[in-house]
């Protein structure tokens, strides 16, 4: 019952957050001189007409807001793009996601697998060479913004030793963006796993398992790793947020035709409906992933009680 109440509360917060994002996006955009749909530059007549008809720009603000909200909730409709003629924001976002989601998922999978392995190795070889090496590397990588890692990799593997293409649209061109996106989460998960592993290895039940003669492997996989995984689950949500924001610059660096790249170009050419739409879609993605990782955490470990 308590779990159920927690779930309800958590879902309510997520829905509220998404509503705040949409509302904030809509009203903040009103601060743009001339309004978001008109901008400062002259529009093509057709885009202007489409916008006028769509949002009733002559109507009072609350009514426009309700139309905007309703279109999003019922039809995922964010209106037409200002700069890409004849295409709707939803369509551009859909195409971008088709490229970016596989990229992000690959990065997340690699980061989780590599992070868990490296973290476990570091914990088992505590204060020995592998541990020190892993810790030094991860400390460096958590201090490097993704665009720095990206540019270094680009320089190293695409220019100095040209073994991989610099352009993300080419064959094999997805390798560098995926690696760039994965490095920070890998470093983070490694450190997280290492510390929770060390914590678990010091527990009494591990000593008991050892005392009753279980093999090292059984202890590691049957007892230690399972419990050490818990804190890592809480990071899965933030990891997605990290990969999403990272992809904005990474797709820029490697010229990958994903949602990050179209978002950045919409910022520089002030395609406001596009900025609004992408912000909302990506926010929903991040908030949902945070929600899921919280729920999974709660379900996996019934000992955890939230207030």
């Amino acid at each position: 019952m308590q779990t159920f109440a927690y779930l309800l509360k958590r879902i309510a917060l997520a829905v509220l957050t998404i509503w705040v994002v949409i509302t904030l996006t809509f009203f903040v955009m009103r601060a743009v001189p001339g309004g978001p749909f008109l901008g400062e530059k002259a529009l093509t007549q057709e885009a202007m007409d489409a916008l006028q008809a769509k949002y009733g720009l002559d109507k009072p603000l609350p009514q426009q807001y309700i139309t905007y909200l309703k279109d999003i909730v019922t039809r995922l409709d964010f209106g037409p793009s200002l700069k890409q003629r004849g295409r709707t924001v939803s369509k551009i976002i859909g195409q971008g996601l088709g490229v970016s989601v596989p990229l992000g998922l690959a990065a997340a999978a690699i980061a989780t697998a590599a992070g868990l392995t490296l973290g476990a190795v570091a914990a088992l070889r505590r204060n020995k060479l592998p541990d020190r090496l892993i810790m030094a590397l991860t400390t460096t990588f958590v201090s490097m913004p993704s665009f720095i890692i990206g540019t270094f990799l680009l320089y190293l593997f695409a220019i100095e030793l040209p073994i991989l293409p610099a352009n993300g649209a080419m064959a094999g061109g997805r390798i560098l963006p995926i690696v760039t996106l994965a490095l920070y989460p890998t470093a983070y998960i490694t450190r997280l796993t290492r510390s929770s592993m060390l914590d678990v290895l010091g527990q009494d039940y591990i000593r008991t398992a050892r005392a009753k003669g279980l093999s090292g492997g059984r202890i590691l996989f049957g007892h230690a790793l399972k419990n050490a995984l818990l804190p890592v689950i809480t990071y899965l949500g933030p990891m997605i947020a990290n990969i999403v924001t990272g992809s904005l610059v990474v797709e820029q660096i490697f010229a990958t035709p994903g949602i990050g790249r179209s978002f950045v170009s919409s910022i520089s050419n002030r395609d406001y409906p596009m900025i609004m739409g992408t912000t909302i879609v990506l926010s929903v993605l991040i908030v949902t992933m945070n929600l899921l990782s919280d729920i999974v955490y709660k379900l996996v470990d019934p000992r955890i009680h939230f207030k």
Partner: protein
Amino acid sequence: MEDFQPALREETATPPTARSDSFFRDGAVRLRKNKVAFTAFFVIILIVLGALLLPALWPYRYDQMLGNTPGKPMDPSFNDLPPFGYSATEYKKIEAGEKVFPHIFGTDASGRDYFIRVVYGTRISLAVGFFASIIVLLVGLSVGSIAGFFGGKTDLTIMRIVDIIYSLPDTLMVILLSSVLKSALSSAFSGTVLSRLGSNLISLFLVFALLYWVSMARLIRGQILSLREQEFVLSARSAGAGAFWIIRRHLIPNCIGVVVVSTALQIPSAIFTESYLSFLGLGVNAPMPSLGSLASEALGSIHSYPHRLLIPALVISLIVLSLNLLGDGLRDAFDPKQREF
């Protein structure tokens, strides 16, 4: 028999008590023992001093296009010089026996000395990190201590707002706000002192003041909640002290360790955010450079001039890494309980 001899005078004297160290002294001693953190501290001091002093000593200015001299035609030989390269005009001067100050990192596409641009960019990035953290500190400290001390409905309302802001995807909101504020503020500020600072920089600070204070507020609230039940607060209350007096004089000084540590760790994350936004074209206004905008500009010419990208990238990494290491060291020295992993 010896055991029953009367005690000598020296033996009966009260043993010299160890000098009682102040909180900061104690922490500083612990920090000095941490070699990594201490090295990081020196690196930061060097970088800060360099960023503050070098622009005054350097013969070139960060926005000075060396090929442009008033009254003369543009001299393109100053543009895109390699590190330690000289322009045609400068070679003539050198042949004539004059001394020309070298362009250590060469020049950029507009003929500006790249070394001084990197130094100036470092200064901007450091300043953004520092002031943004101060803003976060002030907002977080006041909101957090009010919520923690007054409790009840005040606390509940504040913490609900904190919850929502906390669950907002911060980077996306920063991008949204900066991209809007950029155009909204530049028209509002044109002609005032603020416009020199640049609308982007102001919107960056605004965004930090609006969004990034929540973690600090949560932290402070937690500290205040446990502190306010202690006897010294009761004693201050019974002596007739007002709420804000107690917060200011008794509660905040008691959580100073937590505050110092999390402010120190906030600086690299602010620098991180600034460089990220600059890289997306939402950072400081041209011609002012920041490390992120220098890297972003250099991305287009990475094939011909990779050093222009690598230098600011290395400097950012060095700054963020040493600030992180120093922050970790401060945490271990002043507030070991806060250690995450």
